[in-house]
């Protein structure tokens, strides 16, 4: 198996023939773009890490300097607007692909036992991703970032049981200020990426122990292909396409920074990131009271309850009923309508 030269040496030291045989034994579905979404999400996460490390070279996490440092990145530092654009667009696409990946898993009911650990690690990664999105949006310390920190932490306060602690923790105290930015920064660049890395590693490990498809099931052999090289090479092609898309968006579509935060100015009309927009719209539409509870508080509680049900899906519905598919489509349609309402 191992040939001459450096390649042969490396293959020998890595035990490549064994690795290769293992990868070849795994089967991947032959048709369908949806099966590449997980890998694309991983690729976008890598893009986030790479561009994030670069932004760290010039970003300053201090309320008096943060906004200025970001406008310097965008305006003065060579290719700074490109790097920030890549970071911003990859993050949007990352969330989109992550949600799409999850949606497909629910539609195909791939969360069923024995895939509980894969599902749970994916759900935990989703929670961490929400944390990354929330903290990342605070870092530019623009007027929008400041409003985002205020309203986001206030909504988190309504989370049942842990709300008050979460609120104080997100703000680094009772008020949005220097401590809020410091907390957001530390978690955005250190704690949350480390957790995300562990969770993704776990996700892939659990998947490798309990593959989504049985190895070589006779009946479906024609509908599958070996994970290596067939699937992984196609995945690499998909990654290249995503890279082109991100670069194109970063070069041609501007991501305005907006004015610096000033707590003395009235908040500019809050516009949530698109993935929070449906929920934000729901909050805006909500009456002041629902079932005798403060409206936003009720909605946050309901969202948390829904989240717990989703996380527990493999245990609540181990056989994967068809109901999930209808509910998933229903949720998608409602969220799309709400999101569309926010932008019209």
């Amino acid at each position, binding site marked *: 198996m191992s040939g001459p030269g450096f390649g042969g040496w490396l293959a020998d030291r890595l035990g490549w023939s064994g690795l290769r045989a293992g990868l070849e034994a795994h089967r991947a579905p032959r048709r369908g773009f949806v099966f590449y979404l997980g890998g694309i999400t991983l690729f976008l996460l890598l893009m986030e890490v790479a561009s994030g490390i670069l932004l760290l070279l010039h970003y300053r996490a201090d309320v008096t300097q943060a906004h200025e440092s970001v406008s310097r990145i965008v305006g003065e530092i060579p290719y700074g607007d490109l790097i920030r654009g890549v970071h911003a667009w990859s993050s949007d696409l990352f969330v989109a692909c992550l949600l799409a990946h999850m949606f497909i898993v629910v539609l195909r009911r791939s969360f069923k036992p024995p895939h509980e650990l894969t599902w749970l690690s994916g759900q935990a990664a989703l929670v961490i991703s929400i944390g990354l999105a929330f903290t990342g949006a605070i870092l530019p310390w623009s007027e929008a970032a400041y*409003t985002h920190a*205020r*309203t986001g*932490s*206030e*909504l988190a306060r309504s989370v049942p049981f842990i709300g008050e602690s979460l609120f*104080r*923790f997100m703000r*680094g*105290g*009772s*008020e*949005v*200020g*220097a401590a809020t930015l410091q907390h957001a920064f530390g978690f955005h660049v250190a704690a949350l990426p480390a957790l995300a890395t562990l969770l993704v590693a776990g996700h892939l490990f659990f998947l490798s122990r309990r593959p989504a498809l049985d190895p070589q099931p006779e009946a479906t052999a024609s509908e599958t292909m070996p994970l290596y090289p067939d699937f992984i090479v196609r995945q690499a092609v998909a990654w290249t396409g995503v890279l082109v898309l991100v670069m194109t968006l970063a070069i041609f579509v501007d991501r305005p920074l907006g004015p610096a935060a000033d*707590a*003395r*100015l*009235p*908040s*500019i*009309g*809050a516009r949530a990131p698109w993935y929070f927009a449906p929920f934000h719209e729901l*909050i*805006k539409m*909500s009456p*002041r009271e629902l079932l005798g509870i*403060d*409206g*936003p508080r009720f909605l946050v509680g309901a969202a948390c309850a829904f989240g717990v049900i989703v996380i527990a899906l493999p245990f609540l519905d181990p056989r994967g009923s068809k109901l999930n598919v209808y509910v998933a489509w229903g949720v998608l349609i409602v969220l799309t309508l709400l999101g569309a309402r926010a932008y019209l």
Partner: protein
Amino acid sequence: MSEQEGNSPPRRNFLSLAVAGSATAFATAMAYPVARFANPETPGARGSGPATVGKLEDFPVGTAKTVLANERPVLVLRAADGQFRAFSAICTHLQCVVGWSAERNQIECPCHGGVYSADGQRVAGPPPRGLTELTVTLNEGSVIVSETA
């Protein structure tokens, strides 16, 4: 070492339990210092103290101005008769910062359309209650804002 000693299940169970117990006890004992370190502010400590927000001449008669008191935005209104009134400029709905509208003579929240009257009462929109009123005192030309007792 006799086999009985080395592999005796009760002893092994005891050791496992002791290790697990110590680890749990240590983790529990560390939780409080970690939580306090992460969140050093004593509840209610900030914002309760009086804060000097400017000089008398900074607040012309018949105008409104938002200032920061202990990092918190405070809306200071000075009526035509020279009287001061101050409100926490934090909307009671989702904590956006509210602003004074001179044209409409009311306090407005731009985020979700909450409206308050000039005396801080809720008029329209999603806020569940009125703005928190603060006490304004004057001391040798300095304007001091403090929480109403």
